[in-house]
């Protein structure tokens, strides 16, 4: 390979090639069809550069800007809208002062997110979908009544919690709550059962329970505090299993992309049904089903490790980094990639608040272990030190 071509290839890793260089390289490759390695290498270098560029785009920072710009315009428009044009002369001064004040305030707001690039954990947010497909977004700290399209009151959205208020059995409809990556929400069902729904999870439930069994369907992770009603068992259906209870507290973790499904019992008693087999759990026990087809196991665990997320904590004990990253990914909205496979099996024990910035979390892990994290946008590369 001529030096010139070698030089161009080396440069391709670091910068965009000029049209001239590109042409030169393409021509050389065209006349040397045997040099597949060079061609592939070039493609990968370009792909690597593009990926780096893509991942370096700071979407959060950009959204902060757009969010501020759209908020500002709306406030300004409604403020002006209130005045009639003939009154404008009289209010020019106060409005001008108002704008000046506003701008300087927005100015300082805008500086903050730029100064430190943070990777924040999830906030309380979710979406609620009614039987007719109408969607309402649920936000932190707001109050909102939710009414179905037939006019029946369905629910109240109060602080971080959706409370189902529907009463009429004949008007019961199937609803769905969906919590995106980086979110978390609580719902109180019509029977008083409280459910904490974790990131990237969804729960389907009827607005009023009308059948002999109270049946809900879960994808992802949720913690249930089932209100006691011995006449109407409560049933959670997941991908592989169904869980039957009378009144009790338990955690269900059933993400499609995880290679396991777990039911962890904190209080009371539950029956887990799997392929016509029944597994009865006592408090402190966990049912685990591996998706590789092996037989499910029931074992004793420290339930705190599996339920503390609902109280705003991450707890883990002797957890392989691979599993830990899987959990962090859902909460912090990140992607990760292991440079050294050995890191996957490093085990971690600890507890940390879920509202801690990801960088802080990582700094703690780096301090105590041999693992190094390189953060680029929201991609995390994990290697040995």
């Amino acid at each position, binding site marked *: 390979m001529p030096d010139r071509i070698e030089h161009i290839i080396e440069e391709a890793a670091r910068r965009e090639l000029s049209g001239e260089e590109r042409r030169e390289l393409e021509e050389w490759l065209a006349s040397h069809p045997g040099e597949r390695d060079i061609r592939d290498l070039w493609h990968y270098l370009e792909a690597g550069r593009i990926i780096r560029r893509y991942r370096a*785009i700071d979407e959060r920072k950009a959204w902060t800007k757009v969010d501020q710009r759209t908020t500002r315009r709306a406030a300004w428009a409604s403020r002006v809208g209130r005045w009639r044009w003939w009154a404008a002369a009289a209010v020019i001064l106060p409005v001008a002062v108002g704008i000046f004040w506003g701008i300087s305030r927005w100015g300082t707001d805008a500086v903050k997110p730029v100064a430190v690039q943070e990777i924040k954990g999830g906030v309380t947010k979710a979406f609620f979908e009614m039987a007719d497909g109408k969607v309402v977004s649920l936000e932190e700290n707001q109050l909102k009544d939710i009414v179905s399209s037939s006019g029946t009151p369905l629910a109240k959205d109060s602080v971080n919690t959706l409370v189902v208020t529907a009463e009429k059995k004949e008007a019961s409809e199937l609803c769905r709550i969906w919590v995106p990556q980086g979110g978390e929400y609580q719902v109180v069902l019509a029977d008083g059962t409280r459910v904490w729904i974790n990131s990237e999870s969804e729960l389907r439930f009827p607005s009023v329970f009308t059948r002999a069994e109270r049946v809900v369907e879960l994808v992802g992770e949720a913690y249930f505090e089932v209100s006691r009603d011995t006449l109407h068992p409560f049933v959670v259906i997941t991908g592989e299993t169904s869980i039957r209870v009378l009144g009790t507290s338990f955690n269900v973790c059933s993400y499609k992309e995880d290679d396991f499904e777990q039911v962890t019992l904190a209080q009371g008693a539950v029956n887990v049904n799997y392929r016509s087999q029944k597994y009865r759990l006592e408090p402190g026990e966990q049912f685990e089903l591996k998706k590789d087809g092996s037989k499910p196991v029931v074992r004793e665990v420290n339930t705190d490790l599996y339920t503390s997320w609902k109280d705003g904590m991450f707890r883990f004990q002797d957890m392989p980094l691979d599993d830990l990253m899987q959990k962090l990914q859902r909460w912090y909205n990140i992607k990760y990639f292991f440079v050294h496979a050995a890191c996957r099996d490093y085990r971690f024990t600890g507890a940390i608040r879920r509202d801690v910035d990801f960088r802080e979390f990582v700094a703690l892990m780096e301090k105590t272990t041999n693992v190094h994290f390189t953060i680029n946008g929201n991609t995390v*590369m994990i290697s040995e030190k």
Partner: protein
Amino acid sequence: MEQTEHVLALLKQGDKRGLELLFRQFYKPLVMYATRYVPLQEDAEDIVQDVFVKLWETQRFELIERNLRSYLYQSVNNRCLDVLEKNKMVRVEVSDSLLGFTEADMPDDEEWNTRMDEIYAAVERLPERTREIFTAIVFQGKRYKDVADELGISVNTVKTTMSRALSALRNELTDRACVLLMLFV
């Protein structure tokens, strides 16, 4: 429910979460798209942000209901051409590389991530040492010589390892990597 319908429903209610969801899905791909016209990433980001602000201000969601995505790409396209015109800048390659492309070919954020994940996954399957060298050069843009020095091996060893990595990846991925390139180079 389809993401698009969901977003439209929110937008029509004047719910800003709709704008945010749309933003998360399309911001990065749109910036990549815009950098094919305007060379500076900063300019590209400004252009795309303007498009989102304008979309929110005009509130013309009914009109664009049929295709939110092509509306976004078309708007970015127009804004880019405006900016180029205003600055009397024309990028020579633009006219060539744009031939035969429509915004329908542009993946959204999810597809981008899937494609990138495929590349990463294939790289992860390489033997440890090979992967380390390949990552340093391709994903971190390091020079052969620097990698050789860091690992205490010769430049020739780095070259042979790279060549081994490439042939291992060849059957699996080259086509996909090429697709990624065709769209964005």
